[in-house]
């Protein structure tokens, strides 16, 4: 279980997170909605250890992670697939995946190979392109590679930052069915999305982030019944 409490992060003088508290339960899909600039990516970066928080706590499985370096947090089983599918463009698909398993110990080499096979079963497109450089993949393929790379560290929880952004509707459907499948296989997911309609299909709990604060928290049913959210995020009038 990921428990974020009263978390504040700033870029110089600009406060991006102003005391955010939320919980992502084990085995569930938790979704964070919010407009651009609400602090969603900042929250993900802080949880993953790329940004250091000013105050507050990030607890994962009871252990305090706030302020730890990214490699340490990854070792605790919390992996981030960043926004804009930041794959290593000049490296092959295979090397990208192996880089995802970088923290795993040398003695796990055979398990890493097995995981690679499992990944190729789950993402058949990647198998066809094993030796191709990642920069030559399509946007959807890069997104799948980015998710697959995060999986290679065998995380307990996956932080997914806007996996659907800039992708064609068919590919978005595919990404969401992968999210559902991963969750069924026992990986907890904290998902940041702007596509609320798609997120409703997978998420067990919603948070709405606005101007660095949690503005709403509830189940999918509660969210779909909230007038303001319906109008702003589900496009109803």
């Amino acid at each position, binding site marked *: 279980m990921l428990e974020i409490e009263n978390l504040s992060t700033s870029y110089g003088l600009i406060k991006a997170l102003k005391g955010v508290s939320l919980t992502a339960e084990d085995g569930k899909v938790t979704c964070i909605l919010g407009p651009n600039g609400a602090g969603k990516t900042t929250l993900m970066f802080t949880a*993953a250890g*790329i940004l250091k928080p000013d105050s507050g706590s990030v607890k994962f499985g009871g252990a305090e992670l706030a302020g730890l370096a*990214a490699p340490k947090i*990854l070792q605790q089983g919390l992996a981030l697939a960043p926004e804009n599918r*930041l794959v*290593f*463009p000049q490296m092959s698909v295979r*090397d990208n995946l192996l880089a*995802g398993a*970088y923290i795993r110990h040398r003695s796990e080499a055979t398990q890493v190979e097995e995981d690679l096979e499992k990944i190729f079963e789950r993402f058949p497109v990647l198998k066809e392109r094993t030796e191709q450089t990642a920069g030559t993949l399509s946007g959807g393929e890069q997104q799948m590679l980015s998710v697959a790379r995060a999986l290679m560290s065998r995380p307990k929880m996956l932080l997914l930052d806007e996996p659907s952004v800039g992708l064609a509707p068919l590919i978005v459907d595919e990404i969401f069915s992968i999210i559902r499948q991963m969750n069924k296989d026992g990986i907890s997911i904290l998902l940041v999305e702007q596509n609320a309609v798609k997120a409703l299909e997978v998420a067990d709990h919603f948070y709405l982030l606005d101007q660095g604060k949690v503005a709403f928290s509830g189940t999918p049913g509660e969210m779909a019944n909230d007038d303001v959210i319906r109008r702003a995020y589900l496009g109803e009038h």
Partner: protein
Amino acid sequence: MDFLQTSIDGLLFGSAYALLALGFSLIFGIMKRINLAYGSSLLFGGALAVWLEPFLGGGALGLLLVTVFGAAVAGIYVERLCFSPHLGKTGTMASMIATFAIWMQLDEISSQLLPQRTHGFAGIDIEAISFAGIILRSDHVLHFWVAVLAIGALYWTLYRTRFGLLLRASADDPEIAYLLGGRVGLLGVATFAIAGFLGGTAAFLILSSDGQITPHFGLWSTFKGLVAMMLGGVGSLPGAIVGGLLLGFAEAHVTFYLGAEFRDILTFGLLLLILVLRPGGLMGVDVYRTGRLATERI
């Protein structure tokens, strides 16, 4: 027969240029910055080797070890002073200007280590090979084998080890490499040490082939390394190898047919020609075409 002999001589000597360019290219490919102090780091290695020789002995092998070690240490010094404090996107110019200052400093130190200006530099003697009227000079054969070994070791490190995986990942995107658990803080030092090993080896080969070292070697090797790297394609490792071989080949022919005084005219003429015809260098096309990457370099 002359043509064949000259071509072989040029390519074999070019393998030392290839090593020189590889060091340059490795730093550029990973740090995305020019290191103007590269040649003077190599000069420092060579000068230190000559200066220490009376105390250490060891002959040519001693010279090789000290040159390589000195070049790597000078490289790490350059990284700590000029690169690691300026890692941000805005630091590109600052680190280049800083390397210029360190270039002057290392040149000066090296001059002090070489009080007679020109000092002898011993080589490793191996057997010359001759067959069918072609003679492979012993120093050329040494260039070739050492270059093959060094390039093999470099590729093995980059493509067969966990460390190499991290180094390549970090060259593409240091932030994501860190996110995936790589401790990227000391990769700069490792890069400069490897570049120092490659360049130091090249420096030993070239100096021992000349039989002497002068304080001009720093500037000379910066120019040759830069030109070979740019011919092949900036930041591309195969490009550096091709560029080095091409430079050696072309220089040998010009020296043979027109005389040594035309050699540097050719070197820079060739560079001008390539930059006009293929601005990304011979092998640099991929890099040149992908816009995002092209703007991120330099």
